[in-house]
């Protein structure tokens, strides 16, 4: 694009009062050689008309020096083929000026300080405008919009049916010869409608018929997925008969060190006999997105020795009891044990969620239905019947055949053909001993991903999802707001593999997963990113001639978007990419960049900051700010007029993961006096929207300390801080303290070199 620039500076909201706009205009027209106009209210109709007139006259790159880019976005959007760059003169300059303490005089240079800050933001914005390019969306040569659903149980069937109902072709695989999964064994299901008291017909059979009669759905029973290659819009699926091994099974991840050991014969190759992960299977079937609904397995409860499972006859799991109930009659006196911990632990069995509470209530009804004088005893620590299920619980409380108490189950023993259950501290205020025909243990539902990779991706970073131990092995999201996010783009989990769920919940969950799969395919079709940078049409481009095969980008990508060839040269998969830029931050050769965000662009912005010499009141500190959380928090600090040191210059970044240490080195060698990163919390409760970005950036910053020492600079000139979006009252303090620390250290000795 042949860029025609014009800058516009708004005088409104205090900008005109706080700044000398004439001087600011001169910075733009002089130093930056860009035309510049001012207006008293740029976002108003007149102000926009001024810009629009210029745009009609050929201006296509607009620099707006006004409020934060987080507000008035649509007002300053002049179309997809135009570029707008914003300089945040309001929230982060004029509104965050440090005010003198009560009774104190302002600094004699306070007016200049503010003017210098604003000038730097205009310099940076103009530089960005010159360096940025319009995105050119990545388009697959051929896109496939079929959705693969793995697992033919309730969740998988629902996902298939719902995706097909929106017009998409679906391939549904099920390991077993029959569709239906675990639900085939259920006699009845929980109430799903008012009055929430009555067990309902198991919906699985009608669901199977609906799927079988839908000609958009191809069903593959007795089959499973050996491996998945490719990327959203262009996945290649290698199918195989269930349970067999093939050369197309997904290879395990082999680290660089392990590969070395294998080569030296010191370690067995786990992928012996398998095709390399980048190999192309000519028989692979193309799909656009994947729904993982491989479900769950009943948990083993034999480790609770006092409960006798596996040793004492007639101690069974809830799943076994359900099968019994489905096939015939259940015994007349049954105890249901919800919590295995005796007096020491009031937790339910692991992997239960609240499902097993409701299963016990359901199965207790079977006891009464099948036996005129049936007695069911439910022994719980906490009856977990959320929402309307409370009414189901209440119905059971009113059932004369069902007896429920909180209590510590201490022992289950065989006693002359019957079973004795000892319970302490019941609500009857005493210890009781029950004599029953059968004991049912509320075993949990372990996700398939606890025991196997399930998704079988042939990716450089390995076949499974990462870090599932955070979720006890469930293929769950770590984001409360974004429940379908995984670290593998285009793959969405639902049903028992994601959470122990009731059938009603699984249906909802599967419908949501189908939506995400469809949305991913449509986003790929438009050449834009999915969450969290949804709609972003840029993608990382690699200048491969200068790649040194260091593999940092392939290792660090939080989403496993990069594969590599034999030599280690990255093989990008743009439709797997979430556009965080972690690869760009990782690359020591600085060969990765986006059209509107790259090493040169940010580096040039840093270099555009004017560095005054020999003036301790005019040190310059670069703060690279996560645009998702820290940047809004700084805006908020401005709104609240919390002063931030005039020596600081903020540059927003997509994610701290995208921060290349070259920027820090460049800043310090250009004479800036310090550099700080402000990003999201990391660790088990990470808040980074790109999962790993802030954590990786912090590691890189630890290492840059060493580099600085070798240069003769104090490592303390660089810092990284974790903040939350609500820390707007703390952030000015964090920044100002850092500035004080730098002031104490004195100016950067490289200044002026």
């Amino acid at each position, binding site marked *: 694009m042949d860029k025609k620039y014009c800058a516009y500076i708004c005088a*409104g*909201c*205090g900008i005109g009062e706080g700044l000398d706009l004439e001087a600011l205009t001169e910075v733009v027209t002089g130093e930056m050689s860009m035309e510049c106009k001012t207006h008293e*209210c740029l976002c108003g109709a007149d102000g926009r008309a001024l810009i629009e007139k210029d745009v009609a006259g050929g201006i296509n790159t607009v620099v707006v020096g006004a409020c934060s880019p*987080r*507000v008035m*976005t649509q007002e300053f959007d002049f179309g997809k083929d135009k570029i707008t760059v914003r300089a945040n003169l309001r929230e982060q300059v004029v509104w965050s000026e440090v005010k003198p303490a009560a009774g104190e005089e302002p600094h004699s240079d306070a007016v200049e300080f503010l003017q210098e800050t604003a000038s730097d933001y205009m310099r940076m914005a103009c530089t960005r405008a010159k360096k940025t390019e319009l995105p050119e969306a990545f388009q697959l040569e051929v896109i496939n919009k079929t959705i693969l659903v793995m697992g033919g149980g309730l969740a998988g069937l629902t996902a298939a049916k*719902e*995706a097909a*109902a*929106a*017009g998409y072709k679906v391939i549904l695989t099920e390991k077993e010869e029959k569709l239906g999964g675990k639900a085939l064994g259920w006699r009845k299901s929980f109430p799903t*409608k*008012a009055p929430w008291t009555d067990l309902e017909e198991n919906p699985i059979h009608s669901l199977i018929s609906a799927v079988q009669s839908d000609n958009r759905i191809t069903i593959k029973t007795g089959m499973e997925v050996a491996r998945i290659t490719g990327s959203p819009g262009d996945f290649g699926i290698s199918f195989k008969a269930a349970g067999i091994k093939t050369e197309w099974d997904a290879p395990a991840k082999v680290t660089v060190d392990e590969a070395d050991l294998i080569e030296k014969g010191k370690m067995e190759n786990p992928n012996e006999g398998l095709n390399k992960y980048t190999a192309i299977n000519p028989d692979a079937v193309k799909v656009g997105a994947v729904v993982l609904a491989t479900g769950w397995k009943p948990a083993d409860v034999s480790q609770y020795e006092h409960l006798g499972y596996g040793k004492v006859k007639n101690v069974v799991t809830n799943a076994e009891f359900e099968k019994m109930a489905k096939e015939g009659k259940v015994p007349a006196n049954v105890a249901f044990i919800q919590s295995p911990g005796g007096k020491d632990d009031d*937790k*339910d069995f692991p992997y*239960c*969620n*609240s499902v097993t509470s409701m299963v016990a209530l359901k199965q207790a009804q079977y006891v009464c239905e099948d036996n005129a004088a049936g007695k069911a005893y439910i022994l719980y620590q*906490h009856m*977990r019947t*959320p*929402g*309307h299920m*409370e*009414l189901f619980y209440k119905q059971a409380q009113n059932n004369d055949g069902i007896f429920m108490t*909180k209590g510590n189950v201490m022992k289950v023993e065989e006693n002359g053909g019957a079973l004795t259950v000892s319970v302490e501290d019941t*609500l009857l205020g005493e210890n009781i001993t029950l004599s029953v025909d059968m004991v049912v243990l509320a075993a949990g539902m372990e996700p398939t991903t606890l025991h196997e990779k399930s998704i079988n991706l042939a990716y450089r970073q390995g076949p499974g999802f990462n870090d599932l131990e955070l*979720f006890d092995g*469930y293929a*769950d999201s770590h*984001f*409360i*707001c*974004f*429940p*379908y996010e995984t670290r593998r783009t285009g793959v969405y989990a639902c049903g028992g593999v994601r*959470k*122990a769920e009731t059938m009603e*919940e699984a249906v*909802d*969950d599967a*419908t*949501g997963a189908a*939506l*995400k799969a*469809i*949305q991913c395919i449509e986003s790929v079709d438009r050449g834009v990113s*999915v969450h*969290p940078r*949804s*709609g972003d049409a840029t993608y990382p481009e690699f200048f491969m001639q200068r790649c040194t095969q260091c593999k940092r980008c392939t290792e660090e990508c939080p989403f496993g978007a990069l594969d590599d060839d034999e030599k280690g040269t990255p093989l990008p998969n743009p439709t797997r990419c979430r556009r965080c830029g972690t690869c760009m931050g990782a690359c020591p050769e600085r060969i990765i960049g986006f059209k509107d965000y790259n090493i040169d662009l940010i580096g040039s912005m840093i270099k555009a900051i004017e560095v005054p010499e020999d003036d301790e009141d005019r040190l310059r500190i670069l703060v690279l700010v996560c645009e998702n*959380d820290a940047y*809004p928090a700084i805006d908020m600090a401005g709104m609240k007029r919390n002063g931030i040191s005039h020596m600081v210059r903020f540059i927003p970044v997509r994610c701290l993961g995208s921060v290349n240490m070259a920027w820090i080195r460049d800043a310090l060698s250009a004479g800036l006096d310090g550099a700080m990163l402000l990003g999201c919390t990391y660790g088990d*409760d990470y*808040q980074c929207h790109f999962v790993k970005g802030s954590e990786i950036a912090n590691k890189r910053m630890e290492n840059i300390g060493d580099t600085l020492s070798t240069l003769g600079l104090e490592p303390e000139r660089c810092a990284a801080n974790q903040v*939350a*979006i*609500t*820390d707007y009252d703390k952030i000015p303090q964090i920044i100002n303290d850092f500035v004080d620390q730098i002031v104490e250290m004195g100016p950067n000795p490289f200044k002026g070199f």
Partner: protein
Amino acid sequence: MTDEQGTSGAVLVVGGGISGLTAALETAEVGNDVFLVEKSASFGGRVAQLNQYFPKLCPPSCGLEINFRRIRDNRKIRTYTMTTVKSVSGTAGNYHVTLETAPRYVNSNCTACGDCAVACPDEIDNDFNFGMNTSKAAYLPHEMAFPRRYVIKKDALSAAGAEAVKGSCKYNAVDLDMQTETFTVNVASIIWATGWVPYDAKKMENLKFGQSKAIVTNMMIERMAAPSGPTGGKIVRPGDEKEIESIAFVQCAGSRDENHLEYCSHICCMATFKQMTYVREQYPDAKIYVFYIDLRTPGKYEKFREARMADKNAVFIKGKVADIILEADGGVSVIAENAVTAEKITQKVDMAVLATGMQPSLALQGVPADLQMDTSGFIISDFDKAMIATGCAKKAADVVTCTQSSTAAALKAIQVSRR
């Protein structure tokens, strides 16, 4: 605003809380047009009032910020605040919905500079903070409000106030003559994400809410703990601002009670455990008493419960609170029977927090359309009619369940135009 806008497959989302935002965004990011309407002056709904989410203890404004950016960047979504549904006609695939926008008295010229609030002499109770403080009658709904535009409560303005507010605005954004506007949209399906209100605690006479400032609700303590709240994040007894030495959490305040809410509100146990964390951070030695019927912290929430139950200064009593007595020193005594030991407990505390439940908003507001509802006021989806309920309009649920079900609702809405 154009009349009768909408393309085939357009979706109306009613309610701009976390469920409505999610449903709208998930729909629009597939490619359908969306109209998102919100009754109040800003988006975010109930979660915007929360200090943190359980179990990660992360701020809701973090996810809201991402969602607001998704809205700003997506031309498929048109948003309307202070807007409600007046009537619905037509059938699935072709609904005509009449919407009404109440006057904000601030037009789109507003730059959110804040001058009007500075100039305004009149104050109103701050509803966002449950009346625990006041705001100016010209105000931003809350600090992180989206859209970032002021709103004026005209009937609270004095004559002098009206002049001051008008005179303060440099951008001609104050329009006190603004009228209610009515317009219609044409949509294929409607997603109802109308959310919930905290159950009115005054209805439980035995719990004495409103009779002592020492008795607050769980939503009030969220505002107190929030940095943007009435106390700047400090949890103190309202009124005398006493620091907390002892505090009682009264679970199932209205929920699981056939005289009030017959269902379990799903979130209150976890909310209390979360709020214990707020208290503990500020008061390392305060005594915490939790009166409960069952602790409903299933699945991954068990770890969270375990950590709070290890607190040596926390006492958990299985027993429903029968009564709260007001004490002369400004505190209260909470009376319950321990269901395990059968002993009667009277516990004096500085402050009692009522874990009030969720009541579906439409139970109180009534319904402007042919919607099926259960006896509690939760909406029952009718997919054939393209009337789709989600979030807490559908059932009491935590945030993750709401965002998940709203994603599902998006697909059900999209299917309508593809049948």
